[in-house]
Every structure is written in C-alpha cells, then in structure tokens.
C-alpha cells in the first residue's frame, strides 16, 4: 500500500459559501499501479489530487475530516519507509516530499513551464533542491538523461531550449521528465493529455505506461475520458459531486457497471450513442429511407481551390516574408441536407476553413459559392442577405456570448436586422419559442450569459444560430468543451433539429467518435489540405491515406 486516502473531505470557501468539493472519499493506491479517477467537470477529481499533494492554498480550503497516509520511500534508497499523514505534515517536510516522492503533471503544457527559463534549468532546479549535494555537471547529466527517457530527440541540444520552441506534446514530455527526475513513488497526472491532439496523446500515454512499468511507480491518473481510462487504468474510481460512486478494477467498472451514474456516463459516450442509433435504425427501416432521401444532389456550399494565407511579417517595414498556409487549396462540395464532418488535428486549418466559408475571414484565393451564387468577393453590405442563411456555432461557450447582454438582446437583435417579426414583443415571443426548442426556460431570456452552465450556454449558441432560420450551419467544435453527458444531450438536440429544419451542417471536430455518431460523410484535413473524403463508415473502417490511418489508430477507444 503506497497511498491510503481515508474519508477525505476538502471544503472550499467561495465568499460566504462553503463548497464541499471533496466529500468523504476513500481509496488506496498500491505500489506499481495506475489508479484512474474519472468524472465530469466539477466532480472534485482535481481537488482530490491537489489535496493529496497539498497544493490548495490554506486560506480557501479546509479538511474537516480525513486522512491521507503516504508510505514514503527514503530518497537515500536504504529501504526504510515511513508513513506520513499528508494533511498534518509540517511545511518543510512537505516540501521535501512534494516533487521528490510525489510529483505532479498538469493539464496545460503551454502554461505549466516557466517561459523565461530553459527546460534544462527547470529540471536541474528540481534536482538540486531535492539533492543539494549534487553538483552542476552531475545535475545536467541527469537532466539530459531525464529528457532522453521521455524520448525528446537530441536531448543534449534541447536541454538549452526555451519552452516556446517546443510543441505542446514535447512540453508535456518535459513536464513528465521534470516530474520523473527525482524518481518519485507516486506520480499525479491531472488530465495530462486533454490539451493534446489524439496522435500526440497516444504517444504520451504509451510513454507514461512504459515509464511506469520500468520504474515501478504508481500513478494517480485523473481524466474525464473513458477511452484514456480503458488504455491506462488498473483500477478505476468514478467520482460525482465530491463522492466516489463506484470503484473497482477496470474490467468491472467498464463492463459491469453497478451504479446508475456510471451506466449513464458510459451510455453517453458517442461510441455508444452510435450503437444505440444503429440498433434503432435496424428496428425501423423507414428511418433509414428518410435519412437517405433528405440528401439532395445539388451543392449548397461549393468551394473551389480555396486558400487562406496569413502573412508572416518581419523587420522594420513589416515586409511579408512568408505565409502560414492555413487553408491551402481546398475543393469541397456540401450537398443540401448533408452533415459533413471535417476532422483534423489542431492547427490543420479546419476552423479557419469554417470561418472562411462564412466570410468571417477573407480568403486569399479561390471561390466560395453558396446556393450557386458566388460570395467570395461580396462587400460587407451585400453579404447581409446571405448571413441569414448561414450561421455558426462556436466551441467555447464562455466567449461565444456577449457577456454584457441579456440572452433576449442577443437573440432579438439579429431578427430585427433581418426583418423577422413585426414588433419587439413578437420577436421576444419567437425567441421564447426557440429557447423552448433547445430545452431552455423562457425565463432564461432575461439572464446574462455568466449565469448559465457550459451546456446551457451551448444551447443558447444554438438558439442564436436558429433564430434566423438558416439553411447552413457551421458547428465549430461545438461539444469539445462539454462533459460527455452534456455532449450527448447537445448532439442529440442537434440531430433532431437537423432532421426537423432540414439543415445542412459542416461539423468541425477533432473527436472521431463524435464524427462516427453524427455524420454521413467525413473529410479529413491535414496541413490545410483535405486528404481524404468519403462516407464516414467507409473511412473509419478502411482508411486509405496513411495520415488517416495514423489518426484513427491513435484514438483511444472503449470497446464494449
């Protein structure tokens, strides 16, 4: 037994309120085991991790109850072990343990390294704090070894790089190297791959697993992604509202879930949604016919050799030295009534493409035709009639609504511009109906965006797109900021609306399992180009291009 958490309670103070972030949880982690804490946002999983390593500021948190016993190995390696209670540990002792015996990796590799130090300096600092007797040359050697261990190419050279020169995946590797430098007994990984692309995520997960096996350390792995859980965990605990609702071996929890919440979560995974839908379709052949009939052959949106270049400017006179080719010659036809999924990793230009179609970003070359009319060069004013028919829903529910405006203002202003509804009262009534359609209360009209949860905000974004009764909607990563269960609801709502209003959708996402659930056709984008396009089922089953094959094989899947 390496770590034993007993009835841990962590309460956070937010103003006058006390939030029971962690409310009496118990679990144990054995030596050499990967323990996954899985849950939706706000379930208290990160707070649990921070409590174990005692990183929450004392003035906002309290532990009314509980014990965290950590059996700490001696860094000298003479085999003596002592059991420490992390909650009552003295500050100096805590500093000795943290970093050396318990290390942590955070979610966001972009901000967890200090940008003004080289990566080597940051690793060496950790080493020398915990082993003060180590000299510089020795520390540097160990830092290089640590970088080599996490498979950074040319570690002797890269050790002197600053963090901004490294990619997201490499930074996360550096973080792991830093955490592993002192060979800790326990590594806490708080969503270490959530900010990374699937192919990079697959590599990082493989690396972590390999290191864990080689060093025999334990990992407390925190994630929201059941695919990742299936890949990594030995044992799993499912958290909800500060409590562990179910825990057990990977096999047990994923395949014979006992608790309703676990069942719900698993059922909400896009993979499972798809299976359910397929079953429904088999039961009911008319639905298949209906789905097929809707697709009209005439293209609603047609792109020809579309290019969007962003100039790179340098020097005193800001001369353009080069271009970032965000979209590099894309031909794309979206027939009326189709749901086309555009898949790609971050930076492949998929969002830029979506915005270029709506003329939110000017294209450098090529043509965009909407409903057989060319709109590439239209002026701002001339675009207005088209705006009514083409809408967009954004990824980030926090920034996609104007924080200074009530929902009603956000919804009725576009209607007034496009002459929908005769009077303000009539428009408010339409807005009320549309809110009801996206399953929100009419009373919500009078609130400000910050009063809503992420899922609700995403529904409002959907409502805003719908008020103008558009024909075509670009959905830009609409569910990637949401929890699985909320994601399932939003996706289902989107599918219903699509059928009801005969919408044509361009569904931009990085999540293959969502694609499989929602789309009829998919296009894979890489480096500004579309590398493969075809019916979703065909591509997923039998990808032709190497890039697509790599992408698909990297997706962590939960096979049930």
């Amino acid at each position, binding site marked *: 037994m390496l770590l034993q958490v007993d009835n841990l309670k962590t309460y*956070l103070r937010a103003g006058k309120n006390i939030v029971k972030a962690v409310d009496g949880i118990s679990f144990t982690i054995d030596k050499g085991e990967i323990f996954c804490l899985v849950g939706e946002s*706000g379930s208290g999983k990160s707070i649990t991790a921070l409590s174990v390593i005692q990183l929450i500021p004392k003035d906002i948190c309290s532990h009314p109850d509980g014990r965290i016993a950590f059996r700490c190995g001696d860094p000298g390696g003479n085999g003596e072990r002592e059991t420490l209670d992390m909650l009552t540990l003295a500050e100096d002792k805590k500093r000795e343990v943290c970093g050396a015996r318990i290390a942590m990796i955070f979610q966001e590799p972009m901000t967890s390294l200090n940008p003004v130090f080289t990566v080597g300096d940051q690793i060496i600092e950790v080493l020398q704090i915990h082993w003060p007797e180590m000299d510089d040359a020795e520390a540097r050697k160990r830092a290089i070894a640590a970088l080599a261990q996490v498979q950074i190419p040319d570690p002797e050279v890269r050790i002197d790089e600053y963090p901004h020169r490294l990619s997201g995946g490499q930074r996360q590797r550096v973080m792991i190297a830093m955490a592993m430098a002192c060979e800790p007994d326990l590594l806490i990984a708080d969503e270490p791959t959530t900010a990374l692309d699937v192919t990079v995520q697959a590599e990082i997960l493989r690396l972590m697993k390999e290191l864990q096996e080689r060093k025999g350390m334990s990992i407390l792995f925190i994630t929201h992604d059941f695919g990742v859980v299936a890949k990594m965990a030995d044992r799993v605990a499912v958290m909800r509202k500060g409590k562990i609702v179910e825990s057990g071996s990977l096999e047990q929890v994923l395949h014979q879930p006992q608790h309703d919440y676990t069942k719900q979560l698993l059922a909400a995974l896009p993979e499972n949604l798809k299976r359910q839908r397929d079953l429904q379709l088999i039961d009911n052949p008319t639905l298949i016919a209906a789905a097929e009939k809707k697709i009209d052959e005439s293209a609603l949106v047609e792109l020809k050799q579309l290019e969007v270049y962003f100039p790179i400017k340098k020097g005193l006179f800001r001369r353009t030295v080069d271009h970032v080719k965000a979209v590099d010659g894309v031909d794309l036809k979206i027939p009326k009534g189709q749901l086309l999924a555009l898949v790609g990793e971050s930076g492949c230009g998929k969002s830029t493409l979506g915005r270029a179609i709506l003329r939110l970003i000017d294209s450098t070359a090529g043509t965009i035709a909407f409903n057989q009319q060319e709109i590439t060069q239209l002026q701002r004013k001339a675009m207005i009639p088209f705006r009514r028919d083409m809408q967009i829903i954004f990824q980030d529910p926090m920034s996609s609504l104007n*924080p200074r405006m009530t929902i009603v203002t956000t919804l009725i202003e576009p209607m007034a511009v*496009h002459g929908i509804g005769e009077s303000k009262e009539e428009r408010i009534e339409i807005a009320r109906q549309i809110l009801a359609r996206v399953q929100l209360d009419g009373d919500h009209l009078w609130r400000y965006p*910050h009063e*809503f949860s992420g899922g609700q905000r995403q529904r409002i974004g959907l409502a805003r797109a719908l008020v103008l009764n558009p024909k075509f909607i670009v959905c830009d990563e609409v569910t990637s900021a949401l929890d699985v269960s909320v994601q399932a609801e939003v996706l289902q709502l989107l599918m219903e609306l699509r059928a009801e209003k005969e919408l044509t959708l361009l569904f931009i996402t990085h999540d293959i399992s969502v694609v499989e659930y929602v789309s009829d056709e998919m296009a894979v984008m890489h480096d500004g180009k579309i590398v493969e396009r075809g019916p979703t089922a065909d591509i997923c089953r039998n990808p032709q291009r190497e890039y697509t094959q790599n992408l698909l094989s990297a997706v962590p899947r939960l096979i049930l």
Partner: protein
Amino acid sequence: MTNSHKAESMVTESTQAGERQSEKAANRSYAAQVLREAFTQWGARFGLFWIALLATVAVFAPFLANSHPLLLSEGSVISSPMLQHLTMGDFVMLAVFITVVVLIFLNIRFYKKVLVLFATGSVTAIIAFMLVSPPQLTVYDQYRMKQAAGVYDWVVHAPIPYSPKDYIRDEGDTGLEAPLASEERTHWFGTEENGSDVLSRMIHASRIALGIGFVATGIAMLIGIIMGGLMGFFSGAVDMIGMRLMEIFEAVPTLFLLLTFVAFFERSLYVMMVIIGITSWPGYARFVRAEFLRLRQQEFVQAATACGLPLRSILFRHMLPNGIAPILVAASFGVASAILAEATLSFLGLGLVDDPSWGQMLNQAVQSSTFNWWMALFPGGAIFLTVFAYNLMGESLRDAIDPNLKKSAG
C-alpha cells in the same frame, strides 16, 4: 478549474431567487443598470456625493457667494442686484442643471434625454445672449457703504456676502488674512493677497475645475474611442496610419503647448479645454484599440458578424461595452489630470487672469515669505477630494460594467 465551476454553479442557484428582479432589470436600459450597480457601493456614493455637491455649488455660486445682495429694499422699491448681475453663462448653467435634475426623474430613453438637454442648453443660451446684459462696471463697495449709511430698508445677503473679485477696498489695504482673524468681517477660509474672500473664490473656482475636467476629458474620450475603435476593428492600413498619428500627438508636450498658447493668445478657458482634450486622446485610443483587437477575435463578435449585424451595432453595442472598463478608469484619472493641468498653469501664474482657480490660490500659499496654510489647505484639499472622488467613481463603474465581478461582489 473545478473551483470556479463550483462557485459558478452556486451563483446560478442564488440568482434564481432574484429572477423577477432581473426581468424588471431587463426593461431598464443598459446604462441605467450599470449606474444602479455602481452607486450601491459606498466609495462611489461618496464620489458621486462630492461631485454632485461641487456641481450644485458651482451652478448656484452667484447665490451662495456674492457681494451683490440677493434682495434689497431701497425706499420701498424691492430689487435684486444679484439677478441683475447674472451673466449669460450663469443662466445657461442654471437651465442645464435644472433640466438634468428633471430628466433624472423622467422616464424616457437615454438619447432623448441627451437631445432635450442640448435643446434646453442652446435655447437658453440664445435667449440669454439676446436679453441678458449685466452692467459692465460693478462697484461692490456701494452696498456696504449704503447699508452703513442706512439707505436700505432691509437687505438679504448671500450666505457669503463677498464676490470672488471683491477686493474689499473700502476696508483699506487688507491683503492676506487667516481664517476668522478679523473682528468686523467673517472670512471662514480667510482672504487672499488681494483681500478677497477665499471661500467665495473657491466656490466660483469649482466651476472651472469641473468644467475643464469634464470637457477636456470628454473631448479626449470621444476622439480616442472613435479613433481607437476604428484602428482596432479594421487594423491593417487604418491601424498603421492611426498609430503614427497617435505618436505625433503623444510627442506634443501638453504643458508647453498650453504655455505657448497662453503666451501668444488670450488666456481662455475654452482654449485650455480643447488643447488638453486633443493632446490627451492617444491614451484612450490605445486602450480602446488594444481592447478591440482582443475583442475582434472573440467568438461573440464573430457571431455578431455572422448574423449580419450592421457595423455600428458590432462596434458600439457588442464591442465597446466590453472594452469600456479600462477607458472608464483611465477617464477618471484623465479628469483628475486635466484639473491638475489647469491648476499647474494657474500655479505658474499663466492661468486665467482675474478669475479664481484652485491652482492659482495654491500658488499664493508659497509666494509670500510666510507659509499661508489656509491658502494651501482649502484649495489643495478641494483638488485632492475631487481627484479622489473621480477615482472612486471610475473604479466602481469598472466593477459595475463587469457582470462577473459584480455578482461576486454582491
């Protein structure tokens, strides 16, 4: 992260109770809501109170401190020398002030209020210009002499019976006097070097302080918001040209320009306002530009564009309220620094020739061989309080305009 999520969900719960209120609130205009929010804080209330007091005092200055009696009866003929000596400016100020007070309680749309205000202001100005002609020559001593001689049946004096330019020649060579030093006359705040009453001068000087602060900052903000907004939204060539223009204006030293103008042309308050205004807009423009550059990338702005909203709405309804917070804070400092600029000029002896101003009074505190504490304390205190009040208001306006901050504060 989990932290903020929790806090947020609780905020949602607590706001559900106040649902009816927020429905009512939605029927009010945005500006009204913000003001209501801002002035629930005691700091802002103090600031507002001080500025309102100052504004009232400034408007009613002739009624409060005047050597001309408010009313007098001479041989059973009742007259009001005070009213006869009111200038066109006094009348316009009075009319505007009364309109503002009425409009605050009137429930009409904001832009209509502005229109009504402008209309009353200009109509009164025209009427006053045609009808009002105060006597060019004023002899302040006559009232005191006649009263002493017993010519009047009765006299009603202003609370402070001295005009700012009444040097009290009839009392002989008075000069600097500490507060309440003289037996015969009551000068609450003492007298300045020419012998006129300091309190009276301070009351009349508040007009200049308020006027220069508001007008100069208003000019600067107007130019700054328009220029900065266009630069931030369009970027590219517009931004390039705008930035160079800003750099040119920033290179002009305001104080030296003011000194030059004052030396070559007349010492006019309006010239000072305009000069301070057009040399200080780049600061606001920078703020607005930076905010707009940030906001332009925000998804709600893109969504507004995608909905086909007109440019005017995107710029001023969607972007400006989200980017106004730093400008308001800057503006409160701007008002303060405009007041200070005028005080500096007057302190250097290059302010208005004869009209009272706080800075000019401060100047007198150090000019003679002794330290005249009342000449430093009262005008200095007034400048301090005014600058402080603007800062307090700016800060709570900033809090009120940010709905996230406002909820957690409450």
